[in-house]
């Protein structure tokens, strides 16, 4: 370390600025905050202020004066919006729909990712690299583009899948009833398996090899080792990815919005809570109610994250 062996003469060139190490801690008070200043100002502007403003907006309602023909006025109504949301069937139906759909879709997605990671664990190193690169292709494709691709693959007029099915004599559509959920689920699964596979692979590689040795000496088959030794040791990452995926599903927006163009009768404007908020804000123009809905959804997300946190922490310890 050359800086330590410099002649003292250089150091005394700046006598006024020199401080003993002992004083560094005190100086830290404002210096440390100074480094954080740009972030803190931005954080106030893009997190604290918007949430506070949305909250104050949500305490108001737009009322038209007279019998509905006069100009609209924004009046303070206290928690009226929030109590309206609490009994708003369509909003909660959207929340419940995304959570139910999400929990099924995420189990399928993580299941496939787990199987793929376990399979990769068993093939030769060169094959691993090849398969991993290929399976990661959907992850590199922007979400909007992958939604667009599937929009065409599901479309009644352009879909090569329906083309093949028709020729084989099978007639079906990708939308309507359960099929809507299967189609949306397939799209999200396609986007997610590569990414989740990488995570699960990484935690598999982190397991000590000796763990398998004993089982192998006992004559256990590879699939048996996978199921009884590998899987129980990586539940942590499975729960974690499951939790983040579920929180992500509550924010589901672009995918159903795009698919609406193929199947408007199967995907309503309030299919997910975010679609409902978007519709309220920009189609109905009811900013106050939409602001209240955003905050309620944030609280639901927070509760979900907290519950998961508690459950996983208990499991880990």
């Amino acid at each position, binding site marked *: *370390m050359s*800086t330590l062996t410099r002649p003292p003469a*250089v150091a005394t060139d700046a006598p006024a600025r*020199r401080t003993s*190490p002992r004083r560094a801690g005190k*100086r*830290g*008070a404002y*210096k*440390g*905050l*100074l*480094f*954080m200043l740009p*972030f*803190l100002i*931005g*954080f106030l*502007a893009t*997190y604290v202020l*918007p*949430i506070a*403003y*949305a909250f104050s*907006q949500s305490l108001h309602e737009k009322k038209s004066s007279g019998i509905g023909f006069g100009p609209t006025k924004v009046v303070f109504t206290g928690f009226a919006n929030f109590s309206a949301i609490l009994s708003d069937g369509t909003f909660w139906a959207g929340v419940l729909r995304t959570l139910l759909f999400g929990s099924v879709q995420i189990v399928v997605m993580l299941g*496939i990712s787990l*199987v793929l990671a376990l*399979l*990769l664990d068993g*093939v030769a190193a060169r094959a691993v690299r090849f*398969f991993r690169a*290929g*399976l990661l*292709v*959907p992850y*590199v*494709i*922007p*979400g*909007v*583009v992958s939604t*667009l*691709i599937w929009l065409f693959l599901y479309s009644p007029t*352009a879909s*090569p899948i329906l083309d093949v099915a028709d020729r084989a004599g099978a007639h079906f559509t990708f939308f309507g009833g359960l099929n809507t959920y299967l189609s949306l689920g397939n799209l999200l699964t*396609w986007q997610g*398996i*590569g*990414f989740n596979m*990488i*995570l699960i692979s*990484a935690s598999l590689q982190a397991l000590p090899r000796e763990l398998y040795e004993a089982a192998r000496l006992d004559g256990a088959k*590879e699939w048996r080792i996978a199921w009884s030794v590998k899987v129980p040791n990586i539940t942590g990452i499975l729960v974690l990815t499951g939790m*983040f995926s579920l929180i992500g599903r509550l924010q589901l*927006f672009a995918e159903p919005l*795009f698919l609406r*163009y193929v199947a408007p009768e199967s995907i309503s404007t309030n299919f997910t809570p975010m679609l409902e908020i978007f519709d309220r804000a920009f189609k109905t123009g009811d900013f106050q109610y939409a*602001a209240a809905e*955003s905050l309620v959804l944030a609280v639901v*997300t927070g509760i979900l994250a907290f519950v998961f946190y508690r459950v996983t922490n208990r499991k880990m310890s």
Partner: protein
Amino acid sequence: MRPSRRGIALTTGLLVLFLLYSLAPTWFLLVASTKSQTDLYSTFGLWFSSNHFADNMRAVWDYHDGVFGRWIFNSVLYSTAGAAGSTLISLAAGYGLAKYDFRGRGALFGVIVGASLLPSTLLAFPLYLVFAQIGLTNTVWAVLIPYFINPFGVYLGKVYADTSVPAELMEAARIDGASETRIFLSVALRLMRTGGITIFMLDFVNIWNNFFLPLFMLNGERSFPVTLGLFSWVQQAQTSRDMNTLVLTGSLLSIIPLAVFMFALQKYWRSGILMGSLK
């Protein structure tokens, strides 16, 4: 004990099956971008017919005075500037948090970790309300400012500062008379370079893929990023069918910059994915 031959066949077979599942939709996009409007509907989607790729390319670039090129440019601008700003701000904040002791440091860190759990989509509408009040919507800043502030980046910055900047080195620099800013700029930043690249990469990809914030903030077609531009074409395709080749060829083109970027940074890619998973 070695795996049986049947085991290997089954393993490879399943992997190939999922590889096809992963690749086929992208293959469809590639094939579709070479087709004319009528072929798109009348020929089999997974194989080529007569080649119209050059026509489609020209149509994409020419449409509305080259608005597509503008979208790509915007996406590059938003992603590069947004990620660069966010990386610098995050590294500085993470460094301040890791290397200086001040009152409320723990609480601040807690708030930052908590905020990084809050999905950005949820903030988009409240942000829109504030930005509309101060007349910032429909400007570049309406998207850039929110991109600059990334609590998860600060968290990563703190982790990198903790592990890669030794306190002794900072002390030595102080004895040499370097100012705190100078220490950060010429010593710490260099040591946190790997962390910085990882943060930059995560931000770049997130911003490139972002659809939600621009949808709320921007309404002039020429300020759109490519994700939003493609969406506007999808909307138009509802009324005029000949937009579909544009949508498909444009989609293919919009993947290329991101693919090039990821390829260039592939060394940091896997660690980036693992880091990103924390979010």
